[in-house]
């Protein structure tokens, strides 16, 4: 789903240019960089800093503060499992353990065949827990069987 191209300065500057006139442009810029490159390349941050007349430290600080911004490309597919209280009450921890075992990686890692597994704290689907999101698609009422199907789809 995500393009993990090599970043380049020209495209980075184009992205900055599209947002520079907005109030508080840094988060929209980082979001678009992640959409375009699949991650927020650390090497690109000085380019952004210079274009916005900010210090490199400021831009680095923002890029590393937020959970969403990746320092490296994710796998081919990203499977997020909710681990917040509503999903806990419906047994999400057993599903997380099952997914980690199936994919051979802990939350935060990527399986050898390119599925990134992540924890998320609430998808707002709390009346149909446990919930997950495969790339942008929400999936609710997970149980072992539905999780296995979701993992199979992610690996396909």
């Amino acid at each position: 789903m995500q393009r993990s191209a090599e970043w380049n300065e020209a495209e980075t500057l184009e992205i900055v240019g599209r947002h520079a006139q907005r109030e508080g442009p840094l988060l929209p810029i980082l979001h678009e960089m992640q959409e375009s490159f699949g991650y927020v390349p650390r090497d690109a941050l000085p380019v952004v800093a210079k274009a916005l007349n900010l210090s490199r430290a400021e831009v680095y600080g923002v890029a590393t503060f937020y959970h969403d911004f990746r320092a490296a490309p994710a796998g081919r597919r990203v499977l997020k499992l909710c681990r917040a209280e509503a999903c806990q009450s419906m047994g999400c921890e057993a599903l997380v353990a099952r997914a980690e075992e199936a994919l051979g990686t802990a939350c935060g890692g990527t399986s050898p065949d390119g599925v990134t597994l992540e924890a998320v704290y609430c998808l707002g689907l709390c009346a149909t827990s446990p919930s997950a999101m495969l790339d942008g698609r929400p999936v609710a009422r997970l149980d072992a069987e539905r999780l296995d199907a979701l993992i199979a789809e992610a690996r396909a």
Partner: protein
Amino acid sequence: MRRVLVPRDAAAIACGAEAVVRALAAAGIAPVRNSSRGMFWLEPLVEVEEDGVRWGFGPLDAAGATALAEALAAGTPAAEIRHPQAVGEVEAIPFLAGQTRLTFARAGITDPLSLADYAAHGGWKGLGRALDIGPEAIVAEVTASGLRGRGGAGFPTGIKWKTVAEAAGPQKYIVCNADEGDSGTFADRMVMEGDPFLLIEGMAIAGIAVGATRGYVYVRSEYPHAIAALEAAVATAEAAGWLGERVGGSGHAFRLEVRTGAGAYVCGEETALLDSLEGKRGIVRAKPPLPAHKGLFGRPTVINNVLSLAAVPFVLAEGAKAYADYGMGRSRGTMPIQLAGNVRHGGLYETAFGITLGALVDEIGGGTASGRPVRAVQVGGPLGAYFPRALFDTPFDYEAFAAKDGLIGHGGIVVFDDTVDMARQARFAFEFCAIESCGKCTPCRIGAVRGQETMDRVIAGGDPAGQVALVEDLCNTMKFGSLCALGGFTPYPVLSALAHFPEDFGGGARRLPTAAE
């Protein structure tokens, strides 16, 4: 005329609404995409409208949708279709019929992105009256309604608006806090996906009231459907003249922009949210100065939760008294309560303040989804207290919950059955705080980590009494020493678990499964 409706709400989609739509399309039916009624145990809930009455079928899968389509093709009236998932007339379902829907009046009824639907169902009436009566009277009306901040703090909305209205500044802002990060809550998401023009109307009224010409909605990135719906609605409202240089043809300008968060729970704290909007790390600011005086970019700013702003159009359209007539004590109006977690009938229940917790969980929610006894409920998100059944007579009211060392927060109730291990829930409260702390103040940044470690020792079982005493002391420091509610309220789930479920902290770890099987 007959219409078939399938919700486009993210929870309905997560339960398979798109497969239902494909099955209907294969049978030649192009459904209207409405929003969800908020009865999530029935999603995907397909509605068939005949002669103005809606008949429900849910939860449907593709096969169920095909069977429904065949019955409709055979000309059977919806009321007479014998279908295993037929639930009868939708508005007669007790969960829905028992509610007082002021904010959610249109939920499930309209196509969320149809301006015509919005106007036909009472939309823009509040804004129209606001333009007629002018800024001072708007603020007076909101104050008189008794509306309090629905994000959790419960601060009177009218007083906040008055402060901004009286502040001087070349540019003022309306910021909508749509960073709905609390587990067990989804009412903001439902407003944004299901009735986005309502939020736009509320923000425009706020702008006119305080003299702000710019507004931002800060939506969490975990809500892609809400972001898409809001962006489409803003573009539609702009094209129709409800936003822009002349709001509704008046002399007031108001422009609105949707911004996406980046996965930081702490940005639900208003000052961290403002820093994030400015393009900084989402770090909490010390108060004062209040955002009303120095908010976004140092300018006077109204920052309100989605539900607060979404309550305003009703207040203006029907008058402050009509709103304030609902409720109890100093909690006026209605609260969109969200029943979540291990609950049989989970969903959105908007009702006047004053209903008891027990009525909500046992009668309306129908007990647990697992069928086991309810042991604990967490009210108000990850920073809210765990309540045992012994406190189920507590009325849903800001002050009544505070008196029981709890909070109603954003109105989420997460139900747990008797397999829950409260020591693990207490540990999770610290763990979550450690993951999400912005790091500015020491009690939160260090305390959360130390709390998690100490709870690990409690669970491991050595010297539980000594370790629990340490946890209590640490909670005291966090409660009174933290800058914001993240560190300051993390003690609520911890101390309530200790107070009401001491047996789980006794002789060491109870190796129960962490949830129902």
